[in-house]
């Protein structure tokens, strides 16, 4: 395999840019049909979405805020994928990770945010890692299927949080299932504070410092996967577990480590959502971000750069969809979920549909090449 083509001979640029573009195009066609079906004009609706997502400073900051969480969960899904594991448990890992972050913020009230942040990141990553590591262990050492186990762990996470927020963690004297508010000193600086420090005035917006953390994670994942021994092991195990074992790698440990890192990344959603925005532990704060991470990772083709870009796209869809549903009563914000599903279908399950067609189109000499291979 040369650096510029994939094993089947499709040029790299086509794999990295053209295929995702085709997938996105297909998703847009399907969502346009849905908008048509409910009697609206898809062109103006989509234009309104784009304007809502990136047409104003406020819109853009919401887009980036959603993208922050999606970078974490997208990286989580991708790193597990590199090790050949399909982690559907990002949702639960994000939820439990947020518990770790939240507990730290509650415990360290009075500490300045920059002292709380490292501890909160560690706790979030640790809690998320445990929630990913257990299914990883069960897959590697007990042979249970990672997909089913992580689905079950999503339900377990949800029940655990409902129990904790309904009882032990509930704010005294309140009915709503959420913890008390963190101390103000622990809040992560958001756009408003950062702008104020630089002498500008902005409204209160959710975008906060955790975007930097997310980008650092993306860089870290890139380094880990392509420039370390561990990353090489993960990719080898993902490509061919038997071969990895034969080469003397410990495939089981690799699987457990990959799932732990995956869970840790998902566990950082709480830094953005809780320490950054909600400032308390709330029910379902992760709100589907873990599931959307699957679409993000597939669309980004498992590469951190692709994941950051597709996070921006999905962040824009979330924000644009929310704006759209304010303007058009008939269009539910759940339209984004449809688009997400179609992206998963086309870029994940149907990836083999467009590829041969593209191959024929881009490689006119395909018959000769096939002849050589045979």
């Amino acid at each position, binding site marked *: 395999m040369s650096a510029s083509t994939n094993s089947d001979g499709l040029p790299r640029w086509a794999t990295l840019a053209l295929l995702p573009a085709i997938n996105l195009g297909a998703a847009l066609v399907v969502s346009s049909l849905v908008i048509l079906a409910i009697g609206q004009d898809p062109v103006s609706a989509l234009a309104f979405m784009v304007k809502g997502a990136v047409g104003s400073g406020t819109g853009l900051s919401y887009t980036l805020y959603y993208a922050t969480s999606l970078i974490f969960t997208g990286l989580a899904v991708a790193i597990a994928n590199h090790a050949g594991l399909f982690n559907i448990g990002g949702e639960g890992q994000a939820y439990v990770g947020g518990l770790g972050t939240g507990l730290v913020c509650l415990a360290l009230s009075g500490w300045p945010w920059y002292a709380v942040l490292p501890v909160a990141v560690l706790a979030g990553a640790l809690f998320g890692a445990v929630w990913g590591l257990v299914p990883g262990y069960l897959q590697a050492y007990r042979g*249970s299927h990672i*997909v089913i186990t992580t689905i*079950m*762990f999503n*339900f377990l996470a949800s029940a655990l949080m409902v129990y904790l927020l309904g009882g032990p963690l509930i704010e005294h004297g309140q009915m709503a299932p959420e913890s008390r508010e963190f101390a103000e000193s622990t809040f992560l600086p958001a756009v408003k504070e950062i702008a104020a420090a630089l002498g500008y005035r902005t409204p209160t917006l959710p975008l906060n410092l955790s975007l930097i953390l997310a980008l650092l994670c993306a860089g870290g994942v890139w380094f880990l996967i392509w420039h370390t021994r561990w990353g090489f092991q993960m990719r080898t195990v993902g490509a061919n577990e038997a071969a990895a074992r034969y080469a003397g790698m410990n495939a089981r440990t690799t699987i457990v480590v990959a799932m732990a890192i995956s869970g840790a990344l998902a566990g950082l959603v709480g830094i953005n959502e809780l320490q950054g925005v909600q400032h308390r532990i709330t029910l379902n704060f992760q709100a589907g971000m873990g599931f959307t991470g699957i679409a993000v990772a597939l669309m980004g083709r498992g590469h951190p750069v692709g994941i950051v870009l597709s996070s921006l796209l999905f962040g824009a869809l979330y924000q644009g969809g929310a704006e759209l549903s304010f303007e058009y009563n008939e269009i*539910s914000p*759940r339209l984004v979920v449809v688009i997400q*599903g179609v992206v998963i279908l086309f870029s994940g*399950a149907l990836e*083999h549909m467009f590829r041969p067609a593209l191959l024929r189109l881009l490689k006119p000499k395909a018959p000769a090449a096939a002849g050589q291979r045979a």
Partner: protein
Amino acid sequence: MDDTALWIVSLLASTVRLATPLVLAALAGFYSERAGVVDIGLEGKMLTGAFAAAATATATGSPWAGLAAAIAASLVLALVHGFACITHRGDQVVAGVAINTIAAGLTAVLANAWFDLGGRTPSLDGTQRFLGLHFPLTDALRGVPLLGRLYGEVVGGQNLLVYLAVLAVPLTSWVAYRTRFGLRLRAVGENPAAVDTAGISVPWLRYRAVLITGALCGVAGAYLSIAQGAGFQENMTAGKGYLALAALILGKWRPYPTLAGCLLFAATDALQARLQGVALPVVGAVPVQIIEVLPYILTVLLLAGFVGKSIPPKAAGQAYVKDR
């Protein structure tokens, strides 16, 4: 004493009602998975069926039209699953996730647009739903202690789809173990190459399995929205598709043990609702969440081989590539 009898009868009746969608969906999963096509998408197909049933029953006033629409809508998604996994050899789990995601979004968007009730469909009245059937002699036997009530409220008094689910279990067992189609179905899930060698089309066999799965999921969805419930709500399946899958695993991919798994899960669910805040002997009041998560913990332990061992069909999850 009569209170205890009443409590037991109501618990059993509620268990039967809660088990029905699980049985239908788990049997749906049985066909697909025994044919070697993993189906995470039971949840999405049920949800779509539930919406189609409620929307159609609202529009036409007929529960039968609702049921037909549910089956049709679920079949469409089953075809998408087959197209991705059988024809294009895509990843079966990813395809299932895609179907669940599309279903969750699409039903919410369409319900919101068509009915403008914030993601619900209008409440259905009695003529638009499958209501409980009144068995003969119910009133005459009411006086018989325990048995009279059992006959009237657990055995009888359920809606048509409950009896359909009950019948589907022996029928599935017969199809799978006593017919030629069943033999081939099980073979294609274990060793598709052997089936292919015998001159039988692997894709066509798998497509038929996936379509049966779709039809049963549609019935399960219709049960939720136009039999047990009286309308569609956003995400009304609430994980039942996954729970059905867990029951199938618990039942080691066999019809009768799967039925037992569904009944067990339904019973924990029914019990959970009744034990809210009740102090139990010895342990005191238990958080309901502990009872609620029992099915999930059991599934995890079982898959990991800590309590018995559940081994999936050998070829499940793998696309079949025909060699020349």
